[in-house]
């Protein structure tokens, strides 16, 4: 009996649910964009959302940190819980939520400020540093975490917009990491980058997995296979299949998944 409890605890740790979504429905005006999505996203894991364009994967991603709130016509129903707390509860302030659930966007969008200020902005507004030295430390740690430190350490006061595309995206990752989130959402982070920069970002994602729960939307199935442990396949607003990446790619249960990964639909 004791053994069983230990085994159960180990299981619990392995499958520690960070985000759990139940019956999530999203409407954009009259359009039913997401239909009844149930999914448990694990901590310290990379989860990839794949699917053809317009399938709702980005919509679902933006539900997780309530970025859809900024769109007037968007309505979200159902329950999404972060560590067991419903993030669509009336008492939840989305600003507080977004400090815990960071986001990296499709197109690199650094602020038109210095590299330092880009990374320091989040810690500043959330009061994470008590003095300049602490802030410097956070900035350095974040830039190191985003594998950008060595490239920019001598020009922290240069504008962030002057970096190359791949560097800009890593700067955006550093900016997101600097606020010390628990979950990092990435919306097609490599779609605007060349293969070398993509490789660097993918390597970075693998490193970040030790600290965060990562959710990544991607159009590239190879990328999903390379970086993720769990994969969810969306199609026409439905979550068709969710499982370990290996299973999805080698042994899909649903015929639609099989068609998509073999390139017949998309």
């Amino acid at each position: 009996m004791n053994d069983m409890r230990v085994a159960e605890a180990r299981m619990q740790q392995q499958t520690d649910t960070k985000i759990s979504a139940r019956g999530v429905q999203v409407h954009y005006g009259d359009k039913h964009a997401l239909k009844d999505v149930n999914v448990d996203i694990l901590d310290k894991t990379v989860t990839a959302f794949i699917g053809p364009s317009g399938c709702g994967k980005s919509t679902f991603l933006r539900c997780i940190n309530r970025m859809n709130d900024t769109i007037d016509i968007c309505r979200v129903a159902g329950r999404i819980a972060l560590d067991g707390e419903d993030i669509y509860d009336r008492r939840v302030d989305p600003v507080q939520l977004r400090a815990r659930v960071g986001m990296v966007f499709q197109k690199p969008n650094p602020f038109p400020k210095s590299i330092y200020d880009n990374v320091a902005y989040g810690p500043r507004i959330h009061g994470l540093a008590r003095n300049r030295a602490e802030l410097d430390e956070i900035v350095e740690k974040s830039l190191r975490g985003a594998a950008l430190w060595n490239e920019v350490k001598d020009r922290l006061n240069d504008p962030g917009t002057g970096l190359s595309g791949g560097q800009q995206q890593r700067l955006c990752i550093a900016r997101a990491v600097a606020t010390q989130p628990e979950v990092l959402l990435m919306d097609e982070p490599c779609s605007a980058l060349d293969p070398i920069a993509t490789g660097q970002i993918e390597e970075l994602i693998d490193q970040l997995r030790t600290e965060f729960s990562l959710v990544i939307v991607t159009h590239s199935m190879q990328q999903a296979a390379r970086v993720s442990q769990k994969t969810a396949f969306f199609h026409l607003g439905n979550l068709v299949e969710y499982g370990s990446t290996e299973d999805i790619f080698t042994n899909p249960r649903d015929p639609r998944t099989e068609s998509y990964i073999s390139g017949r639909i998309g």
Partner: protein
Amino acid sequence: MSDASFPTAAKTPRTSLLAADPRTRKRNAAEARFRAYGLAAIAVALVMLVVLLVTIFSGGIGAFRQTYLTIPVTLDAAQLDKKGNRNPEDIKKVLTLTYGKILDKALDAAIADKGIQVAGLSDKDLSGLISKEASADLRDRVLADPGLIGQTIEARVLVNGRVDGYYKGRVSMESAARDANTSPAQLELADALKAQGMLATAWNWSFLTSPDASDQRPEAAGVGVAILGSLYMMLVVLALAVPIGVAAAIYLEEFAPRNRWTDIIEVNISNLAAVPSIVFGILGLAAFINFAGLPQSAPIVGGLVLVLMTLPRIIIPARAALKAVPPSIRDAALGVGASRMQSVFHHVLPLATPGILTGVILGMAQALGETAPLLLIGMVAFVKNFPAAPPEGLFDPASALPVQVYNWTQRADPAFVERASGAIIVLLAFLLCMNLFAIFLRRKFERRW
């Protein structure tokens, strides 16, 4: 199998690339015509601009030069301070008329001294040479420094507008012969004085600093009060229209929900921008003067009317500038957990600043040149006294540059036409400065994205 579906070269005969085919020639001709239209339009606009500037400058530059007579004047204590106690109260009792006589005597003495002889010179011609404003100027000088009484001073006095006009080419001997206000003899006297170096045309600062003058003394009229009035009105516009306009634009663009009410507000702001300015004058007359009881001709009323008029002209470009900020910046700020307000004030507004500032300055430049609404609230009045320093001065009567131009063009003496053109030059100089400032700000704040 699918060959048939492609139009092949066989259908259209291949032509040499070295000779343009008719279709290409036609297209090239159309393009050349279009360019010619554009060039012609620009050329016409440039010619108009040059004609405008030449007209204004040739007519108005004279206002910045004025003919002065420099003569020794003996300030006789017996006339100016009969009690001999140098009491300012007693000196003030001596009227301008007495100073006029002193000047006439000084001129007589100067002519006799230099031995100038002019045939047919009447007393009226002689005293008429000196401007009516000169005696008032001399009295002001004595009142400011009573110690001058009893001394002989070198006085630089304005000469009559006709004599001044003679040296600017506006008056000739022939026209003087038909003119009741001057005579050929007077002009000959002026020439003689000029030959003696006593009469000269020099740079005229007082055009910029002195107030308006009555119909009989155009030589003394200046835009001082008008500049100050315009400045006060711009202060009111800057203090009210700019913060309200920019705040309204930020609210409407960044915070307001999109619904029927905001649509109605939007349409009405656009409509307001198109309302003729004279309508705002009627509104100002009804609301600020008749209802609120503010004084007529006061810069505060003019300023408030201009605020109403300028608001939509600030809101519309400010909204456009905010809209032009890429939405990815807002996403980025929200994504790191900034509140709506932080995202707007830390990121969106700095990027929109150059556009907003340009709109603000152009809106203010339009307000500076606005005339019609000011006519209705009494700013076209003749104002001789300078308004006090703000804030009290905002309630004192004042003029405004464009209204001053209008006012002077209504007067009979052609010397005022020169003054009006001069005032237009001043107005254009201010507008040019504001536009240059707008360009400077845009360059300074513009950030590469």
